């Protein structure tokens, strides 16, 4: 077992673009659930919308990078409206059902063979990162040290991804300390009370849904920048990974989703490589390496159960805030 390599991969995962995408998507549902009380179980749908709305204009229309990014933003805003207009007047549970269903609809739609000219069908899309790489401000060479050694393009995608995460966290911080944040948190507690105080609850819920959805869509773009778009990636598993990260870090916190995503992604890689290493070295004989990939989810599931039992507020959450569960 090569511990150096195992820990190195895990440390690299800590700041990988995928982790940045997870963090951004978790900030998005943090706005939805943690602050506004909206149950969005379709964050993978928002990520898929972002990824496809970015890749399709780049490939078919040769759109420059900023324009493709804008297209991803607009698509997610429209998607949020489609979800929100019929459901936000209803009770919170309806949004949960609608979001989980529409995320699946998005995934099945992009994988149909009839649309394969546009979406690439089940094999997805690739070769759209040229416009992003062309904008790379870093000259050729290797950067960093130890497990964090990158080529100029690897560095560029990491810097871009984490810059977006930091911007999103800053935006959420500014909004949540403002009176706007106060109204949104009030809606989480009791809509009718906030309505009786003269606030247009529906509009606030829509704004929160759009904001979190835009973060999800940008996360989708970061997610695919270093690789290809694969429709099978956007299943419900992705959504629940992101929920886990959010709850791990603490729902109504600024740093919770970011740290939660970092810990979760690192843990996922670490447990995988430790299990594989142990099997190859012959310490574990009763499972195969293919089974190891599944078993780590069981271990992570057990760890999460312990977390929910012993620290339900997450890492950064306020225990006192959670103890009033009226």
């Amino acid at each position, binding site marked *: 077992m090569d511990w150096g390599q195992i820990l190195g991969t895990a440390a690299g995962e800590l700041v990988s673009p995928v982790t940045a995408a997870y963090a951004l998507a978790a900030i998005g549902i943090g706005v939805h659930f943690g602050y506004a009380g909206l149950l969005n179980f379709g964050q993978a749908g928002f990520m898929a919308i972002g990824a496809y709305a970015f890749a399709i204009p780049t490939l078919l229309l040769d759109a420059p990078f900023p324009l493709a990014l804008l297209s991803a933003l607009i698509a997610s805003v429209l998607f949020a409206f489609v979800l929100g207009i019929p459901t936000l007047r209803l009770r919170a549970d309806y949004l949960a059902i609608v979001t989980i269903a529409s995320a699946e609809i998005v995934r099945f739609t992009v994988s149909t063979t009839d649309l394969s000219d546009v979406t690439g069908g089940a094999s997805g899309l690739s070769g759209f990162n040229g416009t992003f790489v062309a904008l790379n401000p870093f000259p050729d060479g290797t950067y960093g040290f130890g497990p964090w050694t990158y080529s100029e393009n690897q560095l560029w995608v990491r810097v871009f991804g984490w810059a977006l995460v930091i911007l999103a966290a800053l*935006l959420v911080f*500014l*909004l949540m300390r*403002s*009176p*706007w*944040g*106060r*109204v949104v*948190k*009030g809606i*989480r*507690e*009791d809509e*009718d*009370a*906030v*309505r*009786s*105080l*003269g*606030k*247009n*609850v529906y509009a606030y819920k829509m*704004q929160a849904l759009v*904001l979190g959805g835009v973060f999800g869509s940008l996360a989708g773009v970061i997610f695919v920048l270093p690789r290809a778009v694969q429709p099978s990636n956007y299943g419900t598993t992705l959504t629940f990974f992101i929920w886990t990260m959010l709850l791990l870090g603490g729902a109504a916190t600024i740093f919770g989703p970011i740290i939660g995503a970092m810990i979760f992604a690192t843990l996922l890689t670490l447990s995988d490589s430790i299990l594989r290493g142990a099997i190859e070295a012959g310490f574990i004989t009763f499972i195969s390496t293919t089974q190891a990939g599944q078993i780590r989810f069981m271990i992570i599931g057990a760890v999460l159960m312990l977390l929910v039992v012993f620290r339900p507020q997450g890492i950064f959450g306020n225990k*006192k*805030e959670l103890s*009033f569960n*009226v």
Partner: protein
Amino acid sequence: MSDTVLTHPLVEGEVRPGCKKVDPIVVADGVTRTFGGLTAVDVEHVEIPRGSITALIGPNGAGKTTFFNLLTGFDKPNSGQWSFEGHSLARVPAYRVARRGMVRTFQLTKSLGRLSVLQNMLLGATKQPGENIFTALVRPLWRKREESITEKAEELLERFKLDAKRDDYAASLSGGQRKLLEMARALMSDPVLVMLDEPMAGVNPALTQSLLGHIKQLKAEGMSVLFVEHDMHMVRHISDWVIVMAEGKVVAEGPPDTVMSDPAVIDAYLGAHHDTDLGDMTGTNPVVEARETAAAHAAEREGDR
């Protein structure tokens, strides 16, 4: 009795259900609301006087709270029109009703548990530019207003004796303190009409006295108050005018001391047959009697064999 015409300074003409007020703040016409086959509210005409404390009373299920919800836009009527200060409020959403100056509280207190008491209060304020998502990002645009409403919130909290709880989560308050907080929060917007849905429900007698004092204070400050209540003693203490509802209709109106002797009110509260003799409970009971005769007959037949 029916040939003496009752008059009252708040009323134009004769005092009777649905009478015209000298200076009404709310006028409702033909408001109905049905739930399936049940008509919960069927108010032909009612006017609520300005600058006074009006009590809306009636037995359970009389439609008081439903009528309250309709007036404040929290429920939609099947038909009807109503106006507030001369502007129609029919089919206006609840938040706009509140912005016009008609602010309500709830029967089941709605304090925002995981916000501090002060934040609950600040949420009640109006005209805070920082409540817009874009201005919210730039603190200088809303800091001034925030300071002035914080000052106002602190004054109100002091008046309602909640100032020591300023930074506690609202969920940690007792039931009575939550009632006080809800009332104080409603006052943050300087309402014209305060609508209180059972403000005294589940509150201990000492706190009831202080709540009564606060309600009187609202009137002294020039606000109009409409409140729903069950307890007639409370109503007698503070209200200037009483509207009685039963089975969705306004059955009586008047000043508190005379309305209680109104036969329609007694009927509504005690049932129309309250003075009919239902018989002496210790005397004959037809069911028991029949059973006894049957037993006697059976015994006789047994003896014959």
